[in-house]
Structure formats: C-alpha cells, structure tokens
C-alpha cells in the first residue's frame, strides 16, 4: 500500500508494451477459482463500504429529530443539556481536538526519534527486544492507562502544570482555571493519549524507515553524508507518507479514545464558564457519550443529541483522513 510504505513502484510500472499496469479483471483468466476468489474479495470490499454508509445513514437519521428540537445552536453553543434539549458541540469539539492535537504534537516527534534509534542507532541485541516492548505498550488496555493516569501520574503532573501556568498563564491557552485541581486537565489527557498512540506510530514508522532502499542510503553516504544527513536526505523523505499515515491512525485513536479520557478528565459542572485554557476540564465527544448517554437510553430525542455528537466525531475522523490523503497525494510524483 503506497500510503504506508511510500513505495508504489510495481503498482505504477507500465508493462513492456506500455500498457497500463495490471489492475482488476485484466489479470483474470476467467477460470472457476479465479471467479470464486474475485467474488469473495468483491463481497468483502462491498460489505465494508456498505457498513460505513449504513453507519452514516443511521447517525443522520437518528440525529435529526433531536437537532430539530434543540433550543440552542448546535454549532456555537457550549452548553450540553438533554432536558430541556439545549446542546451544542463547541466544548466537546474543542476538548476532543485539543487533547488529540496535544497527543499528536508530543507523540509524533518522539515516535520518529524512537523509530530512527531502533532502526539505525541501536545495537541489534537491543533493537529487537525494545521494539517488542514498545509494541507491548499498544496492548495495554485503555482502562489501565486511565487508572494509572488519574490516580498515580495526575497528582504529580499537577506540579508541572502549575509551573507552566505560572510561566505562561498570560496566554489564554495556558490560563489558570479556578476549580480545576489535581492535574486532571485537557493538557494532561493529551499527554496520556500521546503515550497511548506512541506505539502504533513508532511501529509503523520503524517499518517504513526500514524499507528505504539500501541503494538510496548508500547514494547519500557516498556523497559524504554523515549518518544524520543520510537519514535526513533519504530515510525521512522516503518514510514521510508512511509517518503521516501512522500519525493519522494515531490521531484516529486519540479522537475516539473513551475510557481513559473519562477516568482522567475533570468534567465541567453544569453551566460552568467555558474557556480556551488547556488547563480546563471538559468532555470529549466519546467520553461525554459514554458517561451520559446511558441515562437517556429510553428517550429517542435525548439519545438523538448524543447520536448527533457521534455524527460530528464520525465526520471529524473522515476530514482528518481526507487531509492526510491530500498531503500524501500531493507529493506522489516525488516518491518513486
């Protein structure tokens, strides 16, 4: 897959007569086995597409009645109340995006550094076990991260946060928020999410970096590149599309993460003043739905409010993936 490996050479190579590359049925022989297998792949592909469309349709259909009955502006209100129906997504959207972006900003550079270390600097006896341990991080259930974050790290981390607030509190983003203590803030959730998405980004980045052709690397070294210069001129550009894909996977996980966020993040009391500060509490789409939707299970209108929130999350992940795709496609001519 070009988006992961960065290499799509064989996919794009025309045949000897200049005919387009093998694709779809052009390679088929029409025998029974071929038709059977082709049918199965078509079925699998079709089912996945159908599920995505059906989920979208379901979300839209169930959200509409609630949106009609909504007394607040869905796109500009910071309130979230289901009786009476007065709900808007600003607070949820901000918290979701802010925690995820913080996670990404921390995790991506770390992951790239770890991947380069494991692939190019670490001795072989260390690289293999270290990679396995990082993969293990991905296998830790989110609830464990949530407990660990909320009860062990957050109280310690509160000191770091109050230091940042003292130093940069004049910027609204880092402003002090009364009533939120103990470190259970948007910022801290972002840090925990960063740890959670680090393994997937590291593992995929390591894989694409390792696929940089030896000829490329030797080409750079023969020009008199140092190790870092070799990495910068060949390995990093080669791995770029893969790193972007990996980051988007990580971002997807961060956007949708529920249980860890729910455990850690202080929820805002009803009617609390909302602010841009990263040291505020709040709810993400996912944590809000998980925490509150069960109470509304019997009322379709109230439930519709949560489904509308889910719809926005659904669209948000689509947009994120589309942006990633555009970034990758734009540089395609330059990636073999």
């Amino acid at each position, binding site marked *: 897959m070009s988006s992961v490996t960065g290499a799509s050479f064989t996919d794009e190579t025309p045949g000897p007569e200049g005919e387009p590359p093998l694709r779809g049925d052009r390679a088929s022989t029409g025998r029974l086995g071929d038709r059977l297998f082709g049918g199965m792949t078509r079925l699998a592909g079709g089912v996945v597409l159908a599920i995505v469309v059906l989920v979208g349709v379901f979300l839209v259909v169930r959200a509409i009645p609630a949106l009609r009955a909504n007394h607040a502006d869905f796109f500009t209100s910071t309130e979230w109340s289901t009786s009476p129906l007065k709900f808007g997504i600003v607070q949820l959207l901000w918290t979701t995006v802010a925690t995820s972006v913080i996670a990404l900003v921390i995790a991506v550079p770390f992951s790239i550094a770890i991947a380069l270390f494991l692939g190019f600097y670490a001795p072989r006896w260390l690289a293999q076990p270290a990679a396995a341990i990082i993969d293990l991080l991905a296998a830790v259930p989110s609830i464990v991260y949530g407990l660990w974050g909320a009860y062990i790290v957050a109280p310690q981390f509160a000191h770091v946060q109050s230091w940042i607030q003292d130093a940069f509190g004049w910027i609204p983003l880092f402003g002090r928020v009364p009533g939120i203590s103990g470190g259970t803030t948007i910022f801290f959730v972002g840090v925990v999410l960063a740890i959670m998405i680090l393994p997937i980004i590291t593992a995929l980045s390591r894989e694409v970096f390792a696929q940089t*052709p030896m000829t490329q690397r*030797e*080409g750079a070294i*023969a020009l008199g590149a140092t190790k870092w210069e070799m990495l910068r*001129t060949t390995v990093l550009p080669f791995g770029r599309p893969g790193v972007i894909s990996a980051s988007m996977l990580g971002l997807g996980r961060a956007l949708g993460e529920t249980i860890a966020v729910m455990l850690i993040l202080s929820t805002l009391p009803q009617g609390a003043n909302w602010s841009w500060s990263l040291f505020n509490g709040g709810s993400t789409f996912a944590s809000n739905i998980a925490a509150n939707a069960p109470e509304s299970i019997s009322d379709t209108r109230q439930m519709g409010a949560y489904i509308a929130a889910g719809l926005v999350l659904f669209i948000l992940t689509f947009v994120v993936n589309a942006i990633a795709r555009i970034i990758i496609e734009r540089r395609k001519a330059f990636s*073999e």
Partner: protein
Amino acid sequence: MGKRIDVKDLNVFYGDFMAVEGVSMTVEPRSVTAFIGPSGCGKSTFLRTLNRMHEVTPGGRVEGKVMLDDEDLYAESVDPVAVRRTVGMVFQRPNPFPTMSIRDNVIAGLKLNGVRNKKVLDQKVEESLVGANLWNEVKDRLNKPGAGLSGGQQQRLCIARAIAVEPQVLLMDEPCSALDPISTLAIEDLVTKLKEQFTIVIVTHNMQQAARVSDKTAFFNLEATGKPGNLIEMDDTQQIFNNPSKKATEDYISGRFG
C-alpha cells in the same frame, strides 16, 4: 584535479571472512582503470575500500594501506565522511533521490557541504549536468522529479551528482549493467570525457567495455568459492587483452571460464 591512488598489501574482511587478499596497485591520476573478473572475485568489494564504503556493511574492515597522493585514507585522524567527499561513487543501479527534483539531486552533495548561495548552486547545476552530458535533455525540467528520467538519464544524473562536489577520484561500480546499449555508449563517452579531470576506476563485467574505455585493466580472480579474491595482474589494457602474462587472465578473456 585527479589524484594518484596507491594501494599496498590490502586485505578486506567482513567479520572473520577474508573477502580480498593482498592487493597492491597504483592508479595513475586522470586515467581510467577497469576492474574485470568473475562474479564474487572481490572487485566491487575492493572498489568500495577506496572510499571506505565497505564500512557501511557491519563488520567491514581492512588491513594494509590506501594512499591518495600523500594522504593515508585509513589513518586514525581521517574521517570516512571526508574521504567520500574526495572519492565519489556511482552505483550499479541508478539511485537518484526519489523525493528530490533533478536540480536538488545535483546539488545534494553541495548542500551537505553547506553551500547555500543560490547563484553558486545554479551555476554548479548547469556545470555538472553539462559535464555529465545531460544538460540539453533536462534543462527545461530541472524542477521535475529525477525518478521520472530514463534509466540512462538517471545514471548520468547520478554522475552529475557525484562530480558536483568536485571529487578527486570517481569510482564506478558496474555503472552500465542496468542500462540498454545506447545509454551504455552515452556513459562510456562520458567516462572518456571525465578522465580529463578525474581519476576513474570502473568495475565492469563487459570486457568490450573495459577494452573501449580503460587505459589500464586489473584482473581479479578467486581460487574457489569461499576463498578470498586476489588481484591476478594489472597492465595496460592493450597488453591485458592481447598478450596477458598470466594463464588465468587469458582463459578469462578468451571466454574459457568465468
């Protein structure tokens, strides 16, 4: 430009395995020297020791001496990165950097050396591409990716990239083995032109090529698989192809083995 290479009693190892044993030779400045011999005889391995590229392979090391004029390439104080800036290399498969434009490929080495001045770089792009007989073909698409060129053009782009940093020596490891005959001729013409400025060492499996482009030819062989490769003899190309002094050389050239 163009320096003399003096090799004395060079052994090349990969870990405990001795790949090449006891090579001594002198390569004259501004000449073309061809290395020929059967596969696995260590000619490419030996070539890579001339700019310390063998050290990229884990366990690669040498015993003996390689002098570039008066400078010992393997002296304690010598940085292999600096060696490779003086002794350039062109590989078997064209390997332009796929993420870079043609222009950026040519100046990649200069940028590593910290050259930033746009005027200097532009001038160097033209100079190197002209030097590599590629300028007329690419001057209108310098900002297009280098990977979009034909194989022969890519190889000349790699040569342009190598000569842009003004090396003393240019090593070529079977530079035409992935190319069609016409592109091969273009590279051979280029080699003849480049020897006015650079000392050139070329590894080739194509004996006509060695006969066509080189002034001196060195024949490498190995006794058996698993044994280290040796330099059998080195002489004027005319002499090697018409009247070699060793039987093994004659057998190889006349196609009786290898």
